[in-house]
């Protein structure tokens, strides 16, 4: 039975990774699960310099999901390399580094730094964080800006580039195409949805940032549709995500067009989710007599 998939030139031993920002820098969950069983570890978004992030409260629970406005708190490239890279470098599975910037140049510079580091599995370009004004969200909704960011990173590195798409567009196809044409090796679909919750007792928004990103099972049907549309628009592989809780969800994303999947919010309430999913995909393949997991991708019958 083959579970391995390729994202550009990156080989994953199975199609399951974790979603950026929901798995810290890997080490935090190492005491609860065996990271070496994952397809890849994807780390929290990093820009050039350290970022303090937003004031608290930063998350709020909502029906079948959560809102977050962490504000991309992070150690910057140097801090990451010093504090977290020594651990990640030793893993048997590749690390996908999620990067962002406020300008095209910054994206490219961060890409260049990680290219120089050596040993990185792939770079994921977050052009769709809804939680900070300069957080790249505008890059994710305008095909021209998106193409600029991707092209600049493409010029800066030979690492596989994964462009993380914004869900917040009338049609994802032109953006998906723009990323592909500008040299992206894969797409990640999708980021969180701009959302809001208000405490009616205090009349205050539940997040200090006022608004935040909705994630979790609530968004799954919208994310499935976005993956399906993106897959029709491009030839490059897609990493599907948004509310994945179990193997059935992961397989649904793959049928819609994803080559691999990422587990996000579910890590917070069930850190073993990704391992359960890998086991569940095996069971499904055995039951359906599927010998290669790549047959599942885009196998929806329409």
């Amino acid at each position, binding site marked *: 039975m083959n579970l391995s998939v390729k994202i550009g030139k990156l080989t994953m031993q199975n199609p399951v990774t974790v979603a950026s920002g929901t798995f810290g820098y890997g080490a*935090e969950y190492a005491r*609860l699960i065996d990271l070496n069983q994952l397809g890849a570890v994807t780390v929290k978004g990093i820009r050039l310099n350290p970022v303090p992030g937003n004031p608290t409260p930063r*998350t*709020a629970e909502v029906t079948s999901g959560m809102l*977050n406005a962490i504000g991309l708190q992070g150690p910057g490239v140097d801090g990451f390399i010093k504090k977290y890279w020594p651990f990640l470098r030793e893993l048997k599975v590749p690390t996908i580094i999620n990067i962002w910037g406020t300008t095209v140049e910054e994206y490219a510079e961060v890409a260049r730094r990680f290219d120089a580091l050596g040993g990185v599995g792939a770079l994921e370009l977050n052009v769709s964080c809804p939680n900070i004004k300069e957080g790249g969200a505008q890059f994710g909704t305008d095909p021209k800006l998106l193409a600029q960011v991707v092209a600049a990173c493409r010029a800066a590195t030979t690492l596989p580039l994964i462009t993380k798409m914004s869900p917040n567009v009338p049609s994802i196809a032109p953006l998906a195409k723009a990323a592909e044409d500008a040299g992206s090796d894969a797409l990640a679909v999708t980021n969180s949805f701009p959302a809001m919750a208000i405490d009616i007792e205090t009349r205050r928004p539940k997040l200090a940032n006022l608004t935040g990103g909705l994630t979790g099972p609530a968004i799954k049907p919208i994310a499935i549709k976005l993956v399906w549309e993106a897959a029709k628009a491009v030839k490059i592989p897609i990493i599907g995500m948004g509310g994945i809780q179990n193997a059935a969800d992961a397989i649904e994303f793959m049928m819609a067009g994803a080559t691999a999947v990422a587990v996000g919010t579910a*890590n*917070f309430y*069930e850190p073993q989710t990704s391992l359960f999913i890998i086991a569940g995909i095996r069971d499904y393949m055995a039951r359906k007599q599927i010998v290669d997991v790549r047959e599942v991708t885009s196998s929806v019958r329409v």
Partner: protein
Amino acid sequence: MLEQTVTIVSNERDTDQYFRLVVRAPQITPLIQPGQFAHVRILPLKDALLRRPFSIFQVAGDTFSILYKNVGKGTEVLSRMRAGEELSVIAPLGHGFTVPAAGGETPLLVAGGYGMAAMFLLAQRSPQTGIVFVGGRRRVDILCEKDFAAIGWEVRVATEDGSHGEKGLVTQPLLAELKRSAVGRKLFACGPTPMLEAVGKIAEDIAVACELSMDEHMCCGVGTCLTCVIKVKAGDGWEYQRTCTEGPVFDSRSIAWEVAK
């Protein structure tokens, strides 16, 4: 830190809206340090995904307990669960209290409401007994008096409505005691943030050591999501640190109260 599905041994009302829940968790109990917490997934909870953090209250044999207040969706469902039902817990978590060394400082504990839960193990494991100052709005908010008395601790009570002990805030009897004598004493506090700030201020004024257990909303409980951060002094400024990992217990002097506002 382990993730385990544990069985409820008992789940009984303490006073008013407070409940004591005991679970069997043989692999977890040996690891528990005072001031640590358990991150609990309340499995029958509908639509609500996240775990809830609770201080570990008591450890007995292969069981540990929490003392919780029914305040919302999760604790409401939890309060209706029965012996034999299951919960998923990740525990023990967080950086707890420094247990006083034998012959070292005399611990003065300060607690508000369910903050008492975080203090019991510290009292029990402390080589010397001390005083626990406990405050609450009404008589029903004063928990665990008997538990502390049973291990030889003195309990001093203050209630805002005067229905039990001294009338007023818990900081009054604390301050009185410290004015009597602050030397060789150390404060440990857990409770609502305004109380913690007041205790921290007293500790600073009187120059007595003080550890505070902070209560911030949590999501992952293990350091990955960056939900639970508080502002902690760093160099000339401050940095965010995680209540679930660097905390919940912090040295009171390290907290950057000024910028936290």
